[in-house]
C-alpha cells in the first residue's frame, strides 16, 4: 500500500483536499475521492487521452500522474469547463453543433485538449489541430466533426475578439 499523502489542490476553482495512497493516480483521486466522474479511464497507460485534464492550464493524462504529484497545483476537469447549469463554453457549444462525438467517452478529454489548444493558439491551422488532438483517441467519429468543432469554436472566438476590438 505504501505511504499515504495529504493532497491539497485547486479543482475547478475550488480548494479541495483528501488523503490518498502514494500510488493513487490523479484520475482515481478525481473520480473516487472527489466524485468527479466526468474524467474517464480508457487505457490507464497514458495512450488514449480519455483521462485528459488541465494541470495549470496544460493537458495531462491523469491516469499516469499521481494524485500526490498534483499537490498544490490547479486542476481543471470537464466539470469545470462551464458553470453547472450555465451556458456552455464556445468549445462545448461547437462540439454539440457539429455533433463531434457519439458515445461521449473520449469527449471530456477532447473538449479539454481543444480548450487548451485555443487558449494558446486561438487561430490554429489544420496541422495544429491534428497535433493538439493527436494524443486523444476517438473510436466513434473518425475525427472529422471534432476538427470541425475546433474550427467553429476558433472562428467564433475570433468573431468575439473582433467585436471587442471595434468597441
Amino acid at each position: 500500500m505504501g505511504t499515504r499523502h495529504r493532497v491539497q489542490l485547486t479543482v475547478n476553482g475550488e480548494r479541495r483536499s483528501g488523503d490518498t495512497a502514494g500510488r493513487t493516480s490523479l484520475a482515481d483521486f478525481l473520480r473516487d475521492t472527489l466524485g468527479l466522474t466526468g474524467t474517464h479511464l480508457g487505457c490507464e497507460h497514458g495512450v488514449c487521452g480519455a483521462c485528459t485534464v488541465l494541470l495549470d492550464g496544460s493537458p495531462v493524462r491523469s491516469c499516469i500522474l499521481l494524485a500526490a504529484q498534483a499537490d498544490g497545483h490547479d486542476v481543471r476537469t470537464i466539470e469545470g469547463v462551464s458553470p453547472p447549469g450555465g451556458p456552455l463554453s464556445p468549445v462545448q457549444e461547437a462540439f454539440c453543433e457539429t455533433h463531434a462525438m457519439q458515445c461521449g467517452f473520449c469527449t471530456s478529454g477532447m473538449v479539454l485538449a481543444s480548450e487548451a489548444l485555443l487558449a494558446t493558439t486561438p487561430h490554429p491551422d489544420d496541422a495544429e489541430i491534428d497535433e493538439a488532438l493527436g494524443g486523444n483517441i476517438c473510436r466513434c467519429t473518425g475525427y472529422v466533426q471534432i476538427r470541425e468543432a475546433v474550427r467553429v469554436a476558433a472562428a467564433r472566438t475570433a468573431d468575439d475578439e473582433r467585436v471587442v476590438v471595434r468597441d
Partner: protein
Amino acid sequence: MTERAALRWVSRPGAVREDRRFVTGHGRYVADITPPGTLHVGLVTSPHAHARITGIDAEAALALDGVVAVLTGEELAKETDPLRQYLDLPDVHWRPLAVDVARYAGEWVAAVVATSRAVAEDGAELVSVDYDPLPVVLDPEAALRPGAPTVHTGHGTNVLAHREFSWGDVAGDVARADGTTQVRVRWNRNSTVPIETFGVVADWDEHRQLLDVWASIQMPQFPDQLASALRIPGNQVRVHFDVDVGGSYGVKRGIKHGVLAGYLARQLHAPVKLIEDRAENMHGGDFHGPDRIFDIALSYTADGVFTSIRIDVVDDEGAYPGRSPLQLAKPIGAIVGPYRVPSAVYHATAVTTNKTGQVAVRGFGQAPTNYAIESAVDAVARELGMDRFEIRRRNFVAPDEFPYRIPSGTEYDSGDYPAVLDKAVTLADLPALERRRDELRGAGKLAGIGVATCLEPGGGNAIFENIMNPANDKTTFPEACRLRVDGSGAVVAVVSISSAGQSHDTMVATLLGEELGRDPATVTVLRADSLSGMPSQSPVGSRMTIVLGEAIRAAATDLKDRLLRVGAHNLGVPVADVDYVDGDVVVRADSERRLRWGEIVAIAHRKQHLMPDGVEPGLEVVHVAHTPRSGGLTAPDGTVQLYPCFSFETHLVLASIDPDTGVVDLDRYYLAHDCGTVVNPEVVRGMVYGGTAHGIGVALYEQFAYDDAGQPLTQSFMDYLLPSTHEIPDIADDEHCTPSPFTTFGQKGAGEAGYMGAPAAVASAVNDALAASGVAPVMSLPMKPSDVWAAINRTTEGNS
C-alpha cells in the same frame, strides 16, 4: 412509406439531444456507478496459452487486508451453468473462469474480491496457480490438420462448424465463363476496441430476491442468459438500460463478466463491480473479432461480366465460440455484393484455437466478406486490364431490377449503385485525384487510387442462427416502443435498450415527432429496465431505425386510433369521418370542427363520461414489432431472406506510400453513401466517418498478434494501434437517397456504414500504387509498413 418531401423533422438538421450531457462530463457510464459497500473484482489470468490447472493456492491473497473472497473456476462451475453457445457443442464449455484447463493466455482462472480495485489487484498477484502446459494450436489452418493439438479434447476436433452452400447453376456458369480468377486474402485478428472497456456492477437484494445489473452492454438476450447461467428465474434479473455505453460497435457482450459479478453479488450479499483494465480487455475479454482466410474464385466472361463466385472461408473463433460462428452466416445475405452474379458457392468453416474468444463485431462478418469480394473484383480487373470503375458498373445490379433476388435467396430492397458511384467520382473530382496521384508519383512516392463499392445489410434479424444450426428455429427478433401521453398532454417514449453512441434518444424523438406531428423537442425518451420494459434485441445489425422505427410507427398508429375514437365520439361523427392532424382530431368535411390535443387528453385521463365504449382510459400504448421481411426459416435448398434493407457505399481513396519505409499515408478520402432516408444528417455522417476510420485502422494498423507460444504480442495501445488524427484524413461524404420500400420513412441501416467498404478501398489503393510499380499486391490486412516494404523490396530484389 411517407413521401420524403412531406417530412418536417426526419432528414432535417436537428440537434442531437445526447450531446450536451457528454460535453459537460455528465454521461453516466458503468464505472461511474458505485453503490454503497461495493466490492471490486481483480482477475487472476493464465500466463499459458494452453495448460492444465493443477492447483490454486489463495491463502496469501485471503490474508491480505481488504480481500474478501477468492473464487476459482471449479467453485463457480458447481453453481452456475455454462454460457450460451449457438452451435451444438456438448463438449465445449464456455465459463467465466477456466475449469481444469486454461485455453488461452489471459483466460480468467480465479477472481479476487476486495474492498478496492487496487487491493483486488494486489490480491490477484498473490494467488498462486500451478499449471501443466499443454501443446498449443494457433494457426487456424494448422488446427484443421490431422494430429493437431485439440483445444477442447472432448470435442475431438478443432472444427466447430462446417457448412456448404451452392446456389444456382454453378457448373454451367463456370463453364460459360472465359476465365476464373482466384485470390486468397487474409483478414487478421482485430476488434472494435472501444475506449471504454467492459464493465458490470451487480447487486443482489435478498429481501426482494432481485439481482440489479448495470453493464456497458450491447447484447441480445443478455438478461435471459444471465439468469439462465445463474440458475435463477428471469424475473429475478433486472438489467438497467439507462447506462451510457462508451463505444461498442458490436463487442460489448460481457456475459461472462455479468455471470461472474452476479454470482459474487449473490454469494457475498454486496454490490460487486468488475471493470476490465485494458490488458484484461485485450487479452481475456473474449472480445476479438473475425480472423479469416478467404479463398475466392470469381468467374467472368471476356467482357468482364461475372458469371459465378465461390468463397471458401476459414474463421478462427479462438478458444470459445459463443455467438461468433454465426458471423459466417450473415454475409450469405449479401454474398455477391452489389453485383449481378447468377450463382454462388459458399463453404464456411469455424475453427477453434488457443486465443481469446471471438465475438460479434460491427457488420457481423460482412466487412471481411466485402473485402474478399472486392479484392477478387480488383484482381479480375487487373487480369483483364479493365478499368476498376468500369468492371463495377458493368456488373452492378441495375436500379430498375429491384427488388433483386440474389442466388442465396435474399432480396435486396432498393438501390441505385451507378448513381452513388457517380456521386463519389464527382465528389472526388476523379481527374483531379488522378493528377494529384501523378504529382505524388512525380515526387518519388508510390501512389494509387482505391475504389470499393459495398453493401451494408440492415435491419438485423437472427435467421443466421438457423442457417448455422437448423436446431435454432428463431425467426423473429423484435423491438418495442411504449408511448405515454400524460394528463397534461406531454409525450414520453420508452425503449428497452442501452446505447453506445448511436444517438437513439434523438432518433426515437425524431421519428415519433414525425409520426405524431408534434415537435420532437417536446418528447421525453426514457430507458426501461429489462423487467419493466418490453422485448428488445439491442441495437445490433444496423437495425434500430428500421425495426424500432416500425414499432414507433405501430405504437403511434395505435395511439392516434385511440385519439380518433375519443375525438369522433365527442364531435358526434363516425370515426371514418375524422382525421388526425398534428394532435387534433378534425372533421374531414369541416376543418373548423375539431377537438384539440389538450381536450382529448383531458377526456382520456379524467372524463369517463365522455369516453366512447371500449376505449381504455389513459393514453398508453405498447407495440412490439417484428423485423421487416422476417418470419421464414431457411429453405431446404439453403436459400434464405436475411436482412431486409441494403445500404450502399462507394469509397474513393488516394494512398501515398513512402518507398523507403513502406509507410502508407491516406492523402484524400471520398465517399458516397446511400442509407435511404436519413433520420438525422449529423448522426449519419458521423457514423459514416467513424466507420471509415475504423476500417482504415483495420486496413493499415490494427492486429492482435501472437507469438508461436500463443503469447499476445499486442500488450497495450502502444502495440494495438488505434488510428489518431495523424492517421485519419479529412473524409468527405456525399449522401444519396434510395428509400427502402420496407420501412416507415424509407430509412435503412447506417450503424456499420463506412466500415463496410473502407478496408477494401484502402487495400485497393495500396495495391493500385504497388501495381503501378510492378509490385505484386499485398493480400492481407493490416498492410503494415513492414508488409508493404517487404513487397516492394521483394520486387526490387527480383528485378536486380
